[in-house]
């Protein structure tokens, strides 16, 4: 479908996708978030005990200047967990979808409001907003069990997925730009990355925290770091290929970005769990196919046939708007 020149780039976001793809992303991102909250529950829980003088509201809680009561903070955490389960299962999604996305944003913002912004939850919070405010429970949900699944691909399912991709790309590009902007060429060709790895591990040792002996060992090899710095920046700014390249290159980028996070974990004992889980990159893939295979395998075991009518209709063209990855 043609567009006036200036709108071509913006029209990139208008693509159709099957409802199952968005549903699969709802399940993956929802389950990841619930798992993350359970795994980091001690940190969320302990925020209730932070001293008042340390409170420094950020983002949607910019006005915060004293901590919430432990009862409020811990009740909100438990409520968010429950909403996360409902979100993942697709129960009452018209209400639960946006509410969970917003409440998770508030709860995770509260965790950041005590003196330092950690960068582990930014992307997942933004992805939840994209999923939560879309019709992400039209398939593979408790809500959809007793109503026919929408048979065709549609932009209402594709736009949120493209929004997730756009957010993913922007976060990586910004990280790459920040390195060049703040560190200058010295970041790329000098000792900055080597110093970062050494300092970060040393600080962890001096603060009695787990660190990376492997990272400490590698800083002895000065020659390793300039190429690693160039590669890091290339992967971050190279996220742009996910917007304009074919599927194969996009997926190669996703694997490279995942490998970058594995190296960060190995060298600095810093975990970015959302990309490390690969769920962050799921929006770049036809994730519904994995779910369909699992369901088909289960049906074969139980002797049930597939809903072939719906699948045949899914192949129909959606108003001339090309499908994602199509």
């Amino acid at each position, binding site marked *: 479908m043609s567009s006036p020149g200036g709108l071509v780039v913006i029209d990139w976001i208008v693509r159709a996708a099957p409802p199952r793809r968005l549903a699969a992303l709802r399940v993956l991102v929802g389950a990841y978030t619930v798992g993350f909250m359970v795994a980091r529950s001690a940190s969320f829980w302990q925020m209730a005990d932070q001293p008042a003088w*340390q409170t420094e509201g950020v983002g949607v809680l910019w006005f915060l200047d004293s901590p919430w009561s432990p009862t409020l903070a811990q009740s909100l955490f438990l409520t968010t967990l429950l909403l996360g389960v409902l979100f993942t299962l697709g129960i009452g999604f018209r209400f639960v979808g946006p509410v969970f996305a917003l409440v998770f944003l508030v709860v995770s913002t509260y965790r950041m409001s005590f003196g330092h912004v950690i960068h582990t939850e930014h992307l997942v*919070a933004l992805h939840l907003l994209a999923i939560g405010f879309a019709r992400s429970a039209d398939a593979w949900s408790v809500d959809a069990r007793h109503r026919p699944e929408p048979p065709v691909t549609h932009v209402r399912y594709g736009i949120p997925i493209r929004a997730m991709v756009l957010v993913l790309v922007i976060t990586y590009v910004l990280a790459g730009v920040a390195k060049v902007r703040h560190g200058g060429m010295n970041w790329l060709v000098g000792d900055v990355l080597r110093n970062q790895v050494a300092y970060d591990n040393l600080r962890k040792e001096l603060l009695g925290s787990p660190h990376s002996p492997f990272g400490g060992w590698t800083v002895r090899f000065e020659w390793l770091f300039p190429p690693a710095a160039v590669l890091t920046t290339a992967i971050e700014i190279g996220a742009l290929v996910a917007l304009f390249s074919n599927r194969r290159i996009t997926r190669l980028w996703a694997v490279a970005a995942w490998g970058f996070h594995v190296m960060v974990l190995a060298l600095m004992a810093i975990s970015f769990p959302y990309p490390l889980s690969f769920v962050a990159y799921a929006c770049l893939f036809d994730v519904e196919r994995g779910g369909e295979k699992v369901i088909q395998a289960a049906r074969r075991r139980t002797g049930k046939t597939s809903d072939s009518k719906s699948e045949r209709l899914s192949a129909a063209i959606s108003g001339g708007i090309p499908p994602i990855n199509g």
Partner: protein
Amino acid sequence: MTDASTDSRATRWFGRVLGTSILVVIGVIPIVLDRDSYPLSTYPMFSSRRTAVEPVHTAVLVGSDGEVDRLSPTQISGNDEVIIAAQLVYRAIGRDGGATLCDDIARRILDPRHEGATIEIVTEKYDAIAWYEGRRSPISRVVHSSCRVPGVSS
């Protein structure tokens, strides 16, 4: 005009507005403001011009025999995030030399094994590269405040 084409056109415009908004709000505004926040950020992790010799603000436990034990992030800040602990010590030093934090830690680690020990809020400087080459003497060490761990019965 059919309902489907109207829906498609409206959705197309919605997509354009959404895409532009994402670009501006998530991509442009953080750079223009140059401010790290949540969920909008410039993602400045590891981007500073770090040198090998940088200060580390921390808290340590000095036993009655003079032996220095490193305190964990949870003991320092009540939270297991190392960056939050480091930032807490930094801000506490700027606030009152770390005296309040020292007392907070003393209460947090109350334990008969620590009775009589001293907590020190310190800024230590090491050459981080040299540290991993085996040269672990501090370049400087400043004690901002210290306090005694009270007895369990007190």
